């Protein structure tokens, strides 16, 4: 079966097999490995994408169910020439340790600032409650995002 949808603003058409996940389709079918495959049960947030405007775990989305939808992955957030403010702030704050959880945090944080440009500390923490950093590097991540929230990022 062929599924047609939009990824990072580009129309794609890709073969899928029921009941495979969107995460597998992105990584293996479309060559977009930014979304990470870790828990496969929606616990870790490392596969976070934005599906039709909503932050979701791509491991819990059936690939065949995205026909006609619009998906933004971490590859669609910022660019090497112009980082997204979240990416810039995380880079400045050294908010990356092993880096595995980073794409998920970037997508979740970008979604938060899209909806709420000046979140409180509590709102930042709640928005990131579904993303786990196994290095436990939360301090630097939160400091980076607080700078974005207060507009004091460099």
């Amino acid at each position: 079966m062929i599924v047609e949808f939009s990824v990072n603003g580009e129309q794609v058409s890709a073969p899928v097999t029921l009941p495979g996940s969107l995460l597998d389709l992105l990584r293996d079918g479309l060559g977009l490995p930014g979304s990470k495959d870790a828990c496969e049960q929606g616990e870790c947030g490392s596969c976070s994408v934005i599906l039709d405007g909503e932050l979701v775990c791509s491991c819990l989305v059936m690939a065949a169910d995205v026909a006609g939808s619009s998906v933004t992955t971490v590859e669609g957030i910022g660019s090497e020439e112009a980082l997204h403010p979240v990416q810039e702030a995380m880079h400045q704050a050294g908010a990356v340790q092993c880096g595995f959880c980073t794409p998920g945090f970037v997508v979740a944080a970008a979604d938060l600032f899209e909806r709420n440009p000046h979140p409180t500390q509590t709102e930042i923490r709640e928005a990131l409650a579904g993303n786990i950093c196994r290095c436990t590097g939360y301090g630097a991540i939160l400091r980076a995002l607080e700078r974005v929230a207060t507009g004091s990022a460099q």
Partner: protein
Amino acid sequence: MEIAHPTSVNEALAGLTEGVTPLAGGTDLMVEVNFGHARPVQVVALRRIAELKEWEGSRIGSGVTWRRIERDGPTALAEAARTVGSPQIRNAGTIGGNLGTASPAGDGHPFLAAVDATIELASSTATRTLPWAEFFVGVKKTARRDDELITAVNLPGNLPERQAFGKIGVRNAMVIATVCAVVTRADDGRVTVALGSVAPTPIRAPRGEAMISSITSPKDTDLIEFQRLVSDEVRPITDHRSTEEYRRHGAGILARRLLERCLR
């Protein structure tokens, strides 16, 4: 056709028979798929059905997400919604999907049991409405037939103003309940208590309810007796998440604390 993307309930029902899996938010089904426990071969995807997302007064469409309930739901249901998974899960997961999965730990279930909600099921030939207690049949088992779709949840028109939800788990976010409960108290003093994760289905604690409902201004000793009765009424098991003893103990304490919130 392996997957159908209907845009109306009637269209969805036309394709729903034995062997066809309805797909709502996917937050339960895809975990089963990813771990090799489920292999749906024919799917009816419900995400594009606007009717199921309608929420009018006390009738909540089955496609309403936890994100919306967290924002717009009655107090204790909104409190429960806020503890469903993470933002990612709440954006996808729906109240109808929660019912369809019928996990004993379903966060939305105690509220529905506490207020005596009914569940609307539609097939291509008829629509029926079941009391919550008839809908839940066992662990992950419901009265839904293969040709039926859960279309809505109906709440009573007058909800008790005092209502509280609580959940015991190992952390504050992203946690499956060890025990969860809702307590409501009406102006006339009538109390309802419903609990999750302590029996194969959500349950009420009728002896605790009857005892505390008969007292206009409960004293500390009454609260302790209420706690004891609730602990005595639950039927928990020991599993990887907790023990029977801890759940029994926790159920009584949680119910008492929620009642105290309702009495303030």
